[in-house]
């Protein structure tokens, strides 16, 4: 304490001059900045701009290189179809990443739920609708289990889901006996499981129900995250959990709902995946966990939480699909596709670091 002045009761003299002072309130002048500065601010207020630009750029470049083959309605609809499962998983992943977590188990939950729905409806004579219902309950429960470990046992999400990834994968091998359920068997007993493999022909395009489902999942989650109080709370928790708690958010309850919802979305992906693949394979989508994270990161959602739009993950998934398709049509070896995606991830994270340094 330095200001041990004489006792004064007449207010503070040094402040009397304030009456004569400039009365303009603290303002936010945006004096003209350099281009880089303005770009940084633009990206800061809209981090999804980067993936949108990359997506448009990639489509344009591959359109030029691979020409009509790439730009055909058929190929473009095929890209959407190919990314639909990873896209839905990326939606589930985005929810967790927005809370500053990470979920290594999304694909494992999805495959396990596909196996559960398949086993029940194809082999055990359960009506397929109930089989699907069981997978939705199961997916939600699996997500809830992750959430309980994170909020109640206070384990870091990375470790929690690293563990449950193994657990769900082992359960999946056990339940399936490491055997696939064949396409014919599904058709014979439970064709509804393949519902999302149907498509609508629009000109040359083949739009599968699964592609439409992916867009619908993103639309609903976007609404929840941006137009409801719950969504604001999710962002606040990812931003600074302690502050959110002090501000009056029940952070653990919200986190639990996020994990449960994420598990539910994985079960949606499970249903869609049966239509996409045709059969139910316990070994499918083994890299799905990491691919969903790739889409989220390329989509400009910060791994530090609280920043980015879930729509970014959709664009991220599409960017990966466009690169794969474009490079393949241009006759480039698969290894260079993987190489390119790797650079995209690093580029995206570097951009995020730069954006977060923005200041007043």
């Amino acid at each position, binding site marked *: 304490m330095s*200001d*041990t002045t004489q006792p004064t009761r007449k207010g503070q003299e040094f*402040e009397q001059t304030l009456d004569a002072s400039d009365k303009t*309130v603290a*303002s936010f002048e945006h004096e003209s900045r350099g281009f880089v500065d303005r770009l940084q601010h633009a990206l800061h207020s809209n981090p999804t701009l980067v993936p949108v630009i990359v997506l448009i750029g990639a489509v344009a470049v591959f359109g030029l290189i691979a020409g009509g083959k790439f730009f055909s309605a058929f190929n473009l609809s095929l890209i959407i179809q190919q990314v639909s499962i990873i896209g839905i998983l990326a939606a589930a992943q985005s929810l967790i990443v927005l809370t500053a977590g990470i979920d290594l188990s999304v694909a494992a939950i999805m495959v396990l739920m596909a196996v559960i729905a398949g086993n029940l409806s194809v082999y055990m004579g359960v009506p397929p609708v109930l089989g699907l219902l069981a997978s939705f309950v199961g997916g939600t429960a699996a997500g809830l289990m992750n959430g309980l470990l994170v909020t109640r046992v206070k384990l870091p999400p990375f470790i929690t889901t690293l563990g449950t990834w193994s657990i769900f994968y082992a359960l999946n091998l056990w339940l399936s006996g490491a055997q696939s359920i064949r396409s014919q068997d599904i058709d014979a007993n439970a064709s509804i499981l393949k519902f999302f493999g149907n498509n609508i022909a629009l000109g040359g395009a083949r739009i599968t129900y699964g592609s439409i489902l992916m867009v619908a999942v993103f639309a609903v989650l976007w609404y929840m995250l941006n137009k409801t109080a719950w969504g604001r709370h999710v962002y606040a928790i990812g931003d600074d959990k302690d502050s959110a708690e*002090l501000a009056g958010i029940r952070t653990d309850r919200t986190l639990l709902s996020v994990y449960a919802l994420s598990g539910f979305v994985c079960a949606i992906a499970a249903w869609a995946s049966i239509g996409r693949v045709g059969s139910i394979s316990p070994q499918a989508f083994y890299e799905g966990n990491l691919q969903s994270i790739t889409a989220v990161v390329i989509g400009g959602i910060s791994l530090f939480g609280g920043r980015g739009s879930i729509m970014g993950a959709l664009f991220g998934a599409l960017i990966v699909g466009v690169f794969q398709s474009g490079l393949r049509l241009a006759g480039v070896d698969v290894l260079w596709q993987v190489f390119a995606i790797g650079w995209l991830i690093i580029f995206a994270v570097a951009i995020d670091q730069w954006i977060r340094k923005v200041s*007043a």
Partner: protein
Amino acid sequence: MTQPVIKARGLVKRYGKVTALDHCDFDLMPGEIVAVIGDNGAGKSSLIKAISGAVSIDAGTIELEGKPISFSSPLEAQDAGIATVYQTLALSPALSIVDNMFMGREIRKEGIAGSVFRALDHAKMREIAREKLSELGLMTIQNIDQPVETLSGGQRQGVAVARAAAFGSKVIILDEPTAALGVKESRRVLELILDVRSRGIPIILISHNMPHVFEVADKIHIHRLGKRLCVIDPKEYSMSDAVAFMTGAKLPEGAVEAA
């Protein structure tokens, strides 16, 4: 004798081996401003966190208007009408000013859009936030959607104070609200404090700024080593007395300092 708005007795709070509150008492009477002063680490923030439900106490009782309370979360305290500006402000930097002001108290649209689809009424929240902020005079109003992290320290503090002033109905607690503010902005916060009191709402003010404390406080609670050392009337003591008490250089008459 009138009933205290807040009456705390024998509060104990330990963080591991550190005893932050050591059988601390606290009183706040209706309509008054009580300033809490004390050295860094004396336990001032812990005291107000105990009252606002941000930490759970290990022992002691707290009454709000005569009724015992035991909040298990800040939300419960807020619902009971106690609004707090924490030293750390408790803002979400990436979210907008409006989002922050209404965090946890969002307004939904009317009709099924709100009840079934849970849609937020952004327009209404913006309008109210604008009103509150211009009352405070701390913000220009067209930037209500600006993320808080792009504001200056003083502006952030303004948002946090406006949030508490807008929602505190029984008690408003401010933990070092002017620490990051310039002269002009501090003055506005002090005016706001006096304004809130004139509406009959009592205030707990933690501050290191002696001139401010002596200017606005009706009573000064001197906190030392985790407990209330004494309560003084700012009209009867000088700032140097207060500082001497809180640093242990001098003992108030009648007070016996525990070891």
